């Protein structure tokens, strides 16, 4: 698990914001922000790979 450094005051503000928003921790809050940004920048997997991953799921046909 990688670690990053952050300004203490910013971390403290993030902690308060995370609690108010309903996150279980400040780590979860920060990860969510990073994930949202990466989603905008990264490519999706090709259609066939996605269909392969869903193959065999009982509920869909």
């Amino acid at each position: 698990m990688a670690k990053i450094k952050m300004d203490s005051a910013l971390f403290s503000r993030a902690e308060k914001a995370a609690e108010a928003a309903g996150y279980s921790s400040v780590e979860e809050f920060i990860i969510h922000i990073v994930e949202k940004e990466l989603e905008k920048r990264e490519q999706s997997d090709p259609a066939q790979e996605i269909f392969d991953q869903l193959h065999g799921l009982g509920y869909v046909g």
Partner: protein
Amino acid sequence: MRDARFGRPPELSICQWVQRFVRFGARAIRGRRVLAHSRIKKFVVLGIDGMDYGLTHRLMEENKLPHLAALRQEGSFTKLGTTIPPISPVAWSSFQTGSNPGKHNIFDFLTRDKRTYLPRLSSVDVQNSRRHGQRGPGVRLLRKSKPFWVVLGDHGIFSSILRVPITFPPEELHGVQLSGMCVPDLRGTQGAFSLYTTESLEKRMCVAGERFVVKRDGNTVQAELTAPSDPFHRNGQRLRCRFDVVIGDKNNVKLGVNGDVHALTVGAYSPWISLEFKADSGLKVHGIARFLVLSTEPEFQLYVTPININPNRPVVPISYPVVYSTHLAKRQGLFATLGQSEDTWALNEGVLTDDHFVQQCLDTTGEREQMFLNSLDRAKRGLCVCVFDGLDRIQHTFWRDIDEEHPAHEPHRRERGQHAIENLYRRMDDLVGRTLEKCDEETVLTVISDHGFTTFRYGVDLNRWLEENGYLKIRRRGRFRRGLIGIDWSETRAFAIGLTGIFLNLRGREARGIVDPGEQADRLRREIAAGLASLTNAERAGERAIRHVYLAPSTYHGPYKDEAPDLIVGFEKGYRMSWANAMGQVTDRIFHENTRAWSGDHCVDHSLVPGVLFCNRRIETESPSLVDIGPTVLDLFGLAIPKYMDGAPLVVAEDGHVGHTVKGL
């Protein structure tokens, strides 16, 4: 030879091992202090996926479930509120985290990729290794928030968590965990079986699984199993494992694989057999499968289960710690590791008979029982949770036995005395009896389910309804294309995918969105909800197909609520999202008769399918819900409930214990 451990975290250094050991020791000391002031010693959750309130009640009244009836009499039995929608990944995630889906991010089995509109698993993200420059596939759990057992662990209380859905990849905790629903097979699918046959392929259609035409040379058939591509080779060639079958006589064959010979009887499953896939690079990947020779004449037919990850040598971690699955396999032998290990597609497609399918469910249940009862013996204090899936799969596939109006109902099955559903309820009752024998007066036992069950007679193509009502446009030759590929996004305002959700094509959120957020989106949500409320099925005398449509902004709260479908459709009894719609096809009519063996379902309005809650103590709270279980456990161990949890502790009586008293029933 190198082993293929391409999904594993880096090996731990000595320093890290020491840190872990010290941390474990510190937690154990903290745990002793907490337990000294706790109201209980142990909390056990026996999860039975899909146990239906109404059916359980009826079977108890018929004196067919004596141990559960004893729990009801001396402790508690009540409906357990489920989630919107009442689907296992959503419900078990709410159970784990004590929170609504807006806080754990799981709203369905499937969601869509906002960049491509393609369907994706909502709970796991598998990143292609080559695309992202990693050595192997990156696997990430998309369920957010924090399970209540992690909170217990923070206070030094040990947990054994077995096969709880949506725990893959496994997370670190103070305890042990074996992942459940959504663990893939070795090919990375949710379960692809193989059929080897000398019969011509044109005679049969197939949706799932792979079929291979093989040639019989005298008494020998040679073929190969395939696994994922070699991660060290750019050509993407699949790994292969050759095997041969020598037919002795009509009922006996010998299977040769990886240098071992296994005697098989026609019509009977082999035990789990270890498979080794080798690549030119020296890579070895380990899987397990069961073989079932269906016939030797006139055609040779061999069914092979999806290739499960070998718990002894997992190619990606399926447990925490990683060695826990190995420990279990050494203790009790190989076991199914696939998330949905009961092969419902092989039954749907007529590859497996009813009896073969039931046998598969029972065998998996047996493995799980052994695991669970052993964990009860070993954990003297703390939390034990185990979820059994077999009843869910059996009800999905045999509801046609108890619904005489179902299109796939076969009266002769009941006449032959085949009661697959009832038999498994009885087996679960027997397990409850054996569990009670292991519960003393300081142990609280709960038996819970995530949802109930009802019939599934008609599939509803909501995309077709959206098209007919002017909300969705199909491109030329776009009809019947999977994954929403045939849709004209420039003129589509809403689309359905997954099992209960409709998404707006929202500008700024979806790649080619055309609906403005705010007032326009709010108005559109309300308009579609009102239109769907009047949807009726002319084939069933104008029967209503939908009970209620929920608007996400007023249904969920929390940081992930914007990830939810905009509308969640609560179907009436007998209706569900159609098979094709779930994967993003648009067909040419709204209602589709369901003639498949998969005849029961729970993807309906949550009010129709509550779960069950049994407890060996009296529960005095009215209308308990799944999200209350975690807070109840924390409360009984004397811990504060974290602010992010939506559930509240149930009022559990201090006395009224049911334990050894029901022994001998």
